[in-house]
């Protein structure tokens, strides 16, 4: 048995031993950050360094305190909402977690707010990620 899918978006990804990175844009009220984010579909939320949250104009600690579980223990963050753009798809009001401590220094692209709305195909040996809005 086989299943065939088609995708309207192809994105280039960058790989290293830490993971797969793809370009995204995060924006809040006119402030935006374009960045390569590590794709982490094991993570519930997108997670940002505190300094990235501040550059988006957030009052970081005014967000909802949210403790994320990791293999190394709890990680304190604050939950906010942002617009997330991946190629031609812009997801509005995506929940994101901003790290409380500055030691967390990279952008992770977790599942919440976008992954449920797309079909995703990853072909690592071609440095390619394919997307399509679910149901289209």
């Amino acid at each position: 048995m086989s299943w065939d899918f088609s995708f309207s978006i192809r994105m280039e990804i960058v790989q290293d031993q830490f993971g797969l990175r793809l370009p995204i844009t995060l924006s809040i009220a006119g402030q935006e950050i374009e960045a390569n984010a590590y794709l982490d579909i094991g993570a519930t939320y997108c997670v940002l360094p505190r300094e990235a949250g501040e550059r988006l104009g957030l009052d970081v600690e005014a967000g909802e305190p949210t403790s994320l579980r990791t293999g190394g223990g709890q990680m304190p963050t604050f939950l906010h909402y942002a617009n997330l753009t991946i190629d031609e798809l812009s997801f509005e009001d995506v929940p994101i977690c901003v790290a409380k401590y500055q030691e967390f220094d990279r952008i992770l692209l977790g599942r919440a707010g976008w992954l449920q709305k797309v079909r995703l195909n990853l072909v690592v040996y071609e440095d390619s990620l394919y997307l399509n809005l679910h149901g289209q």
Partner: protein
Amino acid sequence: MSSVAFDQLRDRLLKLPPDIIRTLRAALELESKDRQKLLDELPDQQPVQHREVKVRRVKPRDYSKELKWLRENAHLYRGQHLAVSGDDLLAHGPDFGEVFDRAKATGKKFLMDYVAREDEVWGGGLWL
């Protein structure tokens, strides 16, 4: 409380950040009457209710030059944040905020990236 539950609780508490441990210690050192009063006032943790996410299509941005530059050069900047515009490296360094601010001061659009150190291996996801 069984010793198993005690051990699990202790292991979890020892992994908490220092400021939370200080707060916990202060709470545990309260008189029993006040400790119970505090326990009664603590809200049950409610599941987070998220806003509805809407999707719209936008004109995609072309990052092909930045990604080509990163494929060819990122390995030279291990453990650093980079700000790349086309095939120009605008700023780099260990601090996200400093690199972002220096790149933004150029007035150009740019893509931020972090290049993992060679000894870094990602161990897994983050969840609630």
